[in-house]
């Protein structure tokens, strides 16, 4: 397991989620509320600007009104009209916005007109009684007329006031408000402007818009302003060019106009956005620091546990020398100390256990040594026994050989001495000259019989010696090779054919076609031949009918040969001796007692196999041979 495992991740995630989550939520709330607050503040500021700008316009109008009221003060005496004229000229000089000022008498006739643009006229008597400015003029309260556009371009307004019996009417060129509004700075790209009650632009920093007699009443914020819907301190809207602006408005009470200030939303919110971005960046930095702190904290918490875990694992793996080092000055450190104590105890008991095991092992080893000595003694004894048995067997063998050879040789010696005696007697007779024809005939008869006997017995001895030689076959005389078992067995049977034809015996070979073994074919041939000859000699009476079967099958890594006859069987008391050398039931009838011994030796020594014999008297005999296939030729 890695040092920073699941525990660390769990801790880190948990702490991070907790700290960062709280920070995020609080950050979002503070950004949100800061945004709202700032927005409201900006809107309020916008509204303040509108109010202040409206105030300045109001001031501008009130200035004109005040100057007009000064000029309208009643003049005394006959010099009055001249004095009035001078007052009016002064007024025009002081107030550039006033282009015309007229004095109207109580009946509505014009007494005096002073104009910046046209000829001054005194006493024209023109009837202006229908003029709304005349009709609406009240004492102490100025009349502000509707805005009108001279030559469809220049915005004008009429102001009138009643002074005693006369009414003073002044025409004010509103282009002069331009001076006022163009000096009001609303941010970088914002502006202040004035619309009249019908939405016509009266004053705007861009004088061209005013001169074009622009009507703004289609714009949503102008509509709101004209309807005096001021639920919010400011509102967002699109200006004439379709740009988003933040607008605020304030009424200009004297004239019923509305002051508007607007500023591109982009510009307004740029500062707001900058503040939010700043807060966001701070929040982000806070989050990063929190995350790092979480990782550090989680590592600090999980590290000693990981050390404990690792230590426990190593102790579990048997490293009892390990000292777990945790220095947290808390329960974890106590736990580590407990671990260390436990390890020490384990180490102690382990050491005791080890000692006991060693003792027991030593004891066992001693016993084993004793046993081994006994065993080797036994083995030596066994070898000795085997050796002596071998010697005994050899003795038996030699005795057997001596016995077997003795008989024919003895007979031969007897016959030869008999022949010598006859020859000596004949010789004596001959020398004495007493030899008779009958004597010669007798000698010839005896010599014939003797030589026959000698020859027969020598032959027998020779045969015996030959058989004896075969008992100790020279096993290196033939090399091993690969051969097909079935084909080879059939060849053997064919070679035995002449002998089998003299009997009433059938034979069957059952063997799969594809068994190919690497072995000594000569040995196999000798084994089969000897078994067949043995069965022919011993299992059946001469002329008896019967069947011999040879079954061959592969069994794993061995080859099994079952040779069966249905002859008379073997007496149980002699079954155990049939493989002994020179054991025969037909001694004197041509049996050498070596056929099955040769088979036994070939199977067990040459082919490293096993052979056994099962027989039941009257039923038949089975020789079962198992030959190992692997290493059979080794």
């Amino acid at each position, binding site marked *: 397991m890695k040092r920073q495992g699941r525990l660390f991740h769990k801790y880190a995630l948990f702490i991070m989620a907790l700290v960062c989550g709280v920070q995020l939520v609080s950050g979002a709330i503070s950004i949100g509320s800061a945004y709202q607050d700032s927005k409201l503040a900006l809107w309020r500021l916008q509204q303040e600007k509108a109010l202040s700008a409206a105030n300045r316009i109001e001031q501008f109008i009130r200035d004109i009104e005040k100057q007009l009221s000064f000029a309208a003060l009643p003049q005394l005496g006959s010099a009055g009209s001249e004095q009035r004229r001078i007052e009016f000229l002064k007024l025009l000089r002081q107030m550039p916005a006033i282009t015309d000022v007229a004095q109207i008498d109580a009946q509505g006739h014009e007494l005096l007109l002073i104009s910046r643009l046209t000829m001054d006229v005194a006493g024209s008597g023109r009837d202006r009684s229908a003029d709304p400015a005349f009709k609406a003029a009240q004492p102490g309260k100025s009349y502000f007329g509707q805005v009108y556009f001279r*030559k469809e371009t220049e915005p004008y307004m009429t102001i009138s006031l009643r002074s005693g019996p006369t009414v003073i009417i002044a025409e004010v060129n509103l282009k002069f408000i331009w001076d006022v509004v163009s000096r009001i700075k609303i941010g970088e790209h914002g502006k202040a402007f004035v619309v009249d009650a019908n939405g016509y632009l009266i004053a705007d920093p861009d004088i061209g818009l005013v001169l074009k007699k622009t009507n703004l009443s289609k714009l949503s914020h102008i509509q709101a302003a004209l309807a005096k819907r001021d639920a919010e301190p400011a509102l967002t809207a699109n200006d004439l060019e379709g740009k988003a602006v933040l607008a605020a408005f304030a009424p200009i009470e004297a004239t019923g106009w509305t002051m508007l200030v607007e500023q591109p939303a982009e510009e307004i919110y740029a500062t707001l956005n900058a503040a939010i971005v700043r807060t966001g960046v701070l929040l982000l930095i806070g989050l990063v620091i929190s995350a790092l702190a979480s990782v550090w904290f989680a590592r600090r918490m999980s590290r000693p546990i990981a050390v404990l875990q690792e230590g426990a694992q190593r102790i579990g793996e048997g490293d009892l020398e390990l000292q777990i080092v945790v220095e947290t000055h808390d329960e974890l450190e106590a736990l580590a100390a407990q671990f260390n104590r436990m390890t020490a105890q384990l180490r102690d008991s382990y050491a005791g256990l080890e000692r006991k095991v060693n003792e027991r092992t030593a004891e066992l080893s001693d016993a084993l040594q004793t046993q081994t000595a006994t065993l080797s003694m036994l083995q030596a004894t066994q070898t000795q026994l085997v050796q002596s048995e071998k010697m005994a067997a050899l003795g038996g063998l030699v005795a057997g050989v001596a016995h077997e050879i003795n008989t024919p040789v003895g007979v031969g010696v007897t016959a030869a001495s008999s022949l010598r005696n006859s020859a000596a007697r004949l010789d004596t007779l001959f020398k004495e000259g007493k030899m008779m024809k009958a004597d010669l005939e007798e000698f010839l008869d005896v010599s014939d019989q003797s030589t026959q006997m000698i020859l027969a017995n020598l032959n027998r001895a020779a045969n015996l010696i030959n058989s004896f030689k075969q008992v100790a076959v020279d096993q290196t005389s033939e090399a091993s090779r690969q051969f097909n078992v079935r084909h080879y067995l059939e060849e053997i049977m064919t070679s035995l054919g002449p002998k089998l034809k003299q009997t009433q015996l059938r034979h069957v070979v059952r063997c799969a076609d594809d068994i190919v073994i690497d072995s000594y074919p000569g040995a196999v041939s000798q084994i089969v031949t000897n078994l067949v000859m043995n069965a022919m000699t011993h299992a059946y009476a001469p002329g008896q009918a019967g069947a011999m079967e040879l079954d061959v099958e592969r069994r794993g890594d061995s080859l099994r040969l079952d040779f069966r006859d249905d002859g008379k069987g073997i007496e149980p008391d002699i079954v155990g001796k049939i493989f002994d050398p020179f054991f025969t039931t037909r001694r004197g009838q041509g049996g050498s007692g070596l056929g099955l011994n040769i088979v036994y030796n070939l199977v067990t020594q040459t082919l490293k196999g096993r052979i056994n014999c099962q027989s039941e008297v009257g039923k038949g005999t089975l020789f079962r041979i198992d030959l190992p296939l692997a290493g059979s030729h080794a």
Partner: protein
Amino acid sequence: MNRRQIVLGLASVLAGAAPAVWGQARPGMVRIGYLPAGPDVADQKWIGMLRTALDGLGYVEGRNLNLVVGRPDGTPEGMKAAVFEMARQQPNLVVTFGNEPVLATRKYGMQAPVVMTFATDPQGAGLVGNLSRPGGLITGPTLGVDDALFAKQLALLRTLLPKLKSVVVLTSDKRHAKQLKAIQELAIPMGLKVRGFTARDRDELAGAFKSAKAGKAAILAWGDYPQSWMRQQVGQYGLKYKVPVVAVHRGYVEAGALCSVGVRPQQQFEVAARYIDKILGGAKPGDLPVEIPTEFEHVINGKTAAALGIALSRELRLVTDQVIE
């Protein structure tokens, strides 16, 4: 031939190979043409006023402004030549002085926007279609509203010379007949007789003054071609022949004329500079309303007044913005 000469030679060859670039203003530079009516208003004083006004809006000659001054000699042929020369310079826009250059740019198909100054009754003279929406390439401030200024000018003459009986109006063109008629009608309530006198050059101008002198008449110089460029003569002849002259702006008074009622020249150029700024900023001249001045100054030449034996009353002082001593 040194290396610099080789480089210059090479540069001129390259410039010749790229005719599309030739004659254009450098990037970041604006080229503004000034096309006055005649030599008198082409002097450094008037150009200086334009320069000051442009300077106020951040157009500084040599840095981002290339001011090209046209110099018509006061004849129709000279004006034509000046317009073609101006067109060849491919200015971003042209500032005119008086009505005549405006008409000339129209007549000869100048493609640059025109900001007019000291234009008289542009709607009546057919310079613009409509005051609030001029259309076309021409806009700018005017000298006044309709014939209103004539009334003020006649009134000032009347105030200065209560015994005055007749006024000679300098004209040069059939088109002036309409204005002459308007002035005559305005003069009737003041008890003044007004007659026109054709003055197309200096000789005829001198004739007009002699005629006025003989008739004890005053002269009204109302600013349209050709008087606009014979300002100096008008002032000098006023003094020489002791004929009271009322003019359309203080330029005449400074040259010796008795008095003027009209716009302040510097203000006229300042308004023009605002137009220039807007047009260079992408506004179409036809969308910019023609501005009618709202402030008119009364200027009196104190010396001339003294020479003519005119005393300045308290009331005169009240309406007069400046008395040039």
